[in-house]
């Protein structure tokens, strides 16, 4: 279950990985998601290796089909990550967009 407190706790870590550059290490495109992500499907999800070698998951936004491959350069951005909870709290988190 998603509680507002969980979202708040997670935000402390999110700000540390905003605006970071890296390369796609793994990728897929989800066509059959869970309940909180149903309205966004299909959506691509990537595992990015940042320049400091840290690996971070996120959805890939503002992308074209050609961007979905291992090695594409991306940057982390702040985005709404799932449908708002019953408490109405909107969860923001990390997504990535291709570096043009």
């Amino acid at each position: 279950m998603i509680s507002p407190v969980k979202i708040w706790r997670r935000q402390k870590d999110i700000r540390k990985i905003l605006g970071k550059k890296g390369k796609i290490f793994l990728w897929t495109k989800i066509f059959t998601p869970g309940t909180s992500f149903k309205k966004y499907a299909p959506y691509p999800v990537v595992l990015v290796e940042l320049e400091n070698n840290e690996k971070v998951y996120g959805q890939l936004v503002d992308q074209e089909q050609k961007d979905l491959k291992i090695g594409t350069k991306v940057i982390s951005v702040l985005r709404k990550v799932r449908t708002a909870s019953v408490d109405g709290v909107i969860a923001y988190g990390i997504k990535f967009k291709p570096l043009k």
Partner: protein
Amino acid sequence: MNYITGYYTTKFGELWDKSLFDLVEEAIIGVLKSTNLERKKIDAVFFGNMLAGVLGNNLHTTSKLSEILDVNIPVFRTEAACASGGTAFNLAKTYLDANSNKNVLVIGAEKMTDYSPEEVITALSAAASGEEQEAGLTFSGLYAMMANFYLEKYHYTEKNLAYVSVKNHYHGTLNDKAHFRRKISIDDVLESAYVSYPLKVLDSSPISDGASAIIMSNNLNFIKKQDYSVSVLASEIATDTISLKSRKNIDEILATKIASDKAFKMARIKRSDINVAELHDCFSIAEILAMEDLGFWKKGEGGQKIKEESTKYGNGGNLIVNTSGGLKASGHPVGATGIKQIGEIFLQLTGQANNRQVKNAKYGLAHNVGGSGGTAVVTILSS
């Protein structure tokens, strides 16, 4: 030495007229009947189940099993995602190793089709890391990432993966307890809709209901009176990081390699001695990785080897894989799967596998995986 003396499984599928505990009861009655074991002679019960708490708001299932059996013995429930059944078996064996002259009931069960696919996918995702869940990843998504990596690294295509599903669906036609009992073609697989690219519906195991049960014993007086028994040479369990991103190699399941190496060492047999195996093909890529990680094929060869169809029943191969239909065609009620796999090997080694009986099967292996590879259980049995 511990022996399996009986096995029963319900049919797997969309069993809308049966609850989780209806299925559990059917499996218990079935396995006790097959072994002529009175329920009062069971010393302990091990129950593999993943989702009753998350989906059905049913916890303390151990007490419910006590009620069904009308006994007051120790009952333990294990949860390790899709390896919940294998883990229950492993724990039961450990219990027998520590206690002489005991009979144990090992049962795995899951009720999944009461809920929408989205609800089930969300519940299954509870077995992924928080970060993976937050990114909208599902289990098909995690295996799809592994598949993309594998196909690119070893220069294979989606067609190589499709051979796994075609084989296992053929085996499913031979198993009257299987969820799906129809043959499919390579084109059927390739034309099915994507679940998570590059994995499609026909690369994926279904959402199923079912329960499977085994009697295991080290009570020699009881074993002597049994019509059938197979010896448990080894059951080994290994774990790894819950998150795929923390793994060193993406084209292998390390927990499988570790559990397998330990199991073969304990069993004192070679890979080539195994005649039948039930492998954890939750997605087509998973069976290929398993064949490599268990040491049957070399790393990277699996995509080519699967096309040769040597592991398909009737082709005269030395090792036949997933005669039950695997998770793909037999169905995947997650808590039951690990027990059904061991049960299928029991049937094969005791000559009870009917129209899918592998001739002269002496050694068999069952391989059960939890999550994206965070838990693996490898069990080796001998006739």
